[in-house]
């Protein structure tokens, strides 16, 4: 009898150990940490909303997933992803500029979501078609649209008042006003400031002036980039720089937000995040906005935005859960508070977004905004474009010559598709 009791005890104990072990074992196995690389701006509330509101809320919803968010500067993030590709140390998820997606797809590092995620269609149908198209390469979707944006004209009202000029509606007026606002002696004032001379900065002028970067099929740049309209508009910018009415892209220039709010820059072309940045750094300052001045091609700005993408090395289940969360209504409404225009249809209908008067001019401008050429070599094309435009604007070489040379090089890059 004793013997039997002993055996029963041992069996019970054994079962208990196994059960406990299994319980702990399962818990330990399911606990995952995913890393999320992004370029949410630390100067605006974006980063704070991500780390203090969104991630805690996600981790509460998915207790077994931890999100490690790593912030980068915009251009550093692109570089970091390329370098990490070569060393095979990519994160699980990243917030990628829409202009990078074709390039990453070509590098074969992104997960085609429509093929691998069973509920992709249900998730995608909640998001706007236009922004979702930026994640589509050769028929497959390599990301989810995360936010969209474009730029409008921000002008410094007190500078305008003291110069006695009105807000420019056309490109010609824009150049004239920029000159009138500028002052070269003492503490100089520049009528217009542009933080760089890349496609993001120059395309709006080219398109609004009726020019193009490439043909409609993105096969060739010669005959398009070096057209008469483009030479004309770049020359006008070069003249503006020569006359001391344009700055911002040079190394020694005052940072954009500071120059604008401190009354040193009369006009800048910026996105919806600028409101939140100004709110933090210059709460007293009241920004004023207007549409991009129109030219022969209308008022055409560049379409910006980000997709959230998953890398092939990711822990897919957890990564997908986080991507769905970030494109969900709650996260999108929260991010809209920092000036990130939602792409989630329900979020766009929410009162927070609809009553946000700062977002309205952008929602209007998006209707005519155009994306940069969605080609895998765009980052390289962009560099050639920047180089040519910078040389032109600095007056180092004739504009036509710069654009001719750039067009030839870009032809080769387009052919490498």
């Amino acid at each position: 009898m004793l013997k039997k009791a002993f055996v029963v005890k041992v069996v019970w104990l054994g079962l208990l150990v196994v059960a406990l072990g299994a319980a702990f074992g399962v818990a330990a196995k399911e606990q995952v940490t995913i890393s999320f690389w992004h370029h949410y701006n630390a100067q605006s509330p974006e980063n704070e909303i991500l780390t203090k509101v969104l991630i805690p809320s996600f981790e509460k919803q998915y207790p077994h997933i931890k999100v490690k968010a790593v912030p980068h500067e915009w251009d550093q993030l692109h570089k970091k992803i390329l370098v990490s590709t070569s060393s095979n140390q990519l994160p699980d998820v990243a917030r990628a500029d829409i202009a990078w997606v074709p390039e990453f797809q070509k590098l074969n590092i992104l997960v085609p979501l429509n093929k691998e995620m069973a509920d992709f269609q249900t998730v995608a149908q909640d998001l706007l078609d236009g922004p979702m198209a930026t994640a589509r390469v050769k028929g497959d979707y390599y990301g989810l649209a995360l936010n969209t944006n474009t730029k409008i004209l921000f002008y410094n009202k007190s500078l305008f008042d003291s110069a006695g000029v009105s807000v420019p509606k056309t490109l010609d007026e824009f150049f004239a006003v920029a000159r009138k606002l500028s002052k070269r002696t003492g503490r100089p004032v520049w009528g217009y400031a542009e933080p760089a001379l890349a496609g993001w900065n120059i395309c709006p002028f080219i398109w609004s002036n009726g020019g193009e970067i490439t043909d409609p099929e993105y096969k060739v740049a010669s005959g398009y980039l070096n057209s008469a309209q483009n030479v004309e508009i770049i020359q006008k910018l070069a003249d503006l720089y020569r006359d001391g009415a344009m700055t911002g892209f040079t190394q020694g220039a005052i940072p954009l937000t500071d120059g604008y709010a401190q009354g040193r820059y009369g006009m800048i072309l910026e996105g919806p995040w600028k409101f939140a940045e100004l709110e933090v750094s210059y709460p007293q300052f009241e920004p004023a906005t207007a549409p991009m001045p129109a030219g022969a091609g209308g008022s055409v700005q560049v379409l910006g935005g980000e997709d959230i993408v998953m890398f092939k090395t990711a822990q897919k289940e957890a990564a997908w859960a986080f991507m769905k969360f970030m494109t969900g209504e709650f996260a999108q409404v929260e991010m809209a508070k920092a000036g990130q225009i939602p792409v989630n249809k329900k979020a766009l209908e929410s009162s927070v977004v609809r009553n946000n008067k700062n977002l309205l001019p952008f929602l209007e401008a998006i209707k005519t905004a155009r994306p940069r050429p969605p080609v895998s070599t765009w980052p390289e094309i962009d560099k050639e474009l920047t180089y040519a435009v910078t040389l032109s604007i600095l007056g180092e070489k004739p504009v036509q010559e710069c654009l001719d040379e750039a067009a030839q090089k870009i032809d080769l890059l387009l052919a490498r598709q």
Partner: protein
Amino acid sequence: MTQAVLKMPEIPKRKTIKVNYPFIFLLLPGLVVFLLFTVYPIVKLLVMSFFDWQIGFGQKSVFVGLKNYLQVIKDPICRKAISNTLIYALVTVPSQIVIGLGVAVLIHSIKRFKITFRVLYYLPVITSWVIAALVFKYIFNNEGFLNYVLTDLLRLTENYIPWLDRPATGLFVAQLLGIWKGIGWNMVVFLAALQGVPPELYEAASIDGSGKIKQFFYITLPMIKNTILFALVMLSIGAFNVFTSIQLMTGGKPAHQTEVALTWMYYKAFEARDFGYAAALSYILAMIITLITIMLFKYFPKDHAQRIGKLT
């Protein structure tokens, strides 16, 4: 036949090196690190320089022979970058040596506060490049300290001078930083050399009636010539490796006009993703540096005995 050759007794044999196993065992950790982190990257880089190197998953790198090297040689921006580097070397190396030697001679000649001055001049050397570059950037910015002094305080000019925006002045600022940061190192090296010059030589010279300046040119300089050569070689290599200051202050802008060899290499590798080009450039640079070093060793005067002979 072969046996006969092997048995030839008249060649005095050197003692064969015995394999010292414990010795090799002790060397092993260092050797492994050296092979892994120095030899392997150098060889891998050489291989990369002959390929159109791809980094994507499952992408094939294509062998292109010397194409990358030809591209580097033909590239006008690369030529600009290398000429900027050469100018940087030509400006900073002699300035650092002259000023560093001057400071060393002065410190050597004083009786008190030697250590204080040594520490003060050495401080820039141990300051981080990043911090020094950012401080210089702040000083030379359009709205920076120098423009404030020149325009608002001294009223020397009406307009702010865009130091960092123009290629020539932007590079000048980087050169200034290089010199400022290098003086201390030269000072220490030359101070050590000066202490090695026998004081009897100076005594003899002054008895023979030669003044301080003559003594400097006919005793000090010839006696520390090897140190000058050492400094020259080290600083030239250092000048070719200039990166942080340029990257932070001008970033190669505007339009790659202020690019130096390493910033251009970095740009081609990590921004333009042309790793093959960057690898080829790094090998071309290594060749240039080797060439310059060989020339320095070959053509640097070695006849200090003759110069001492001219003393009287």
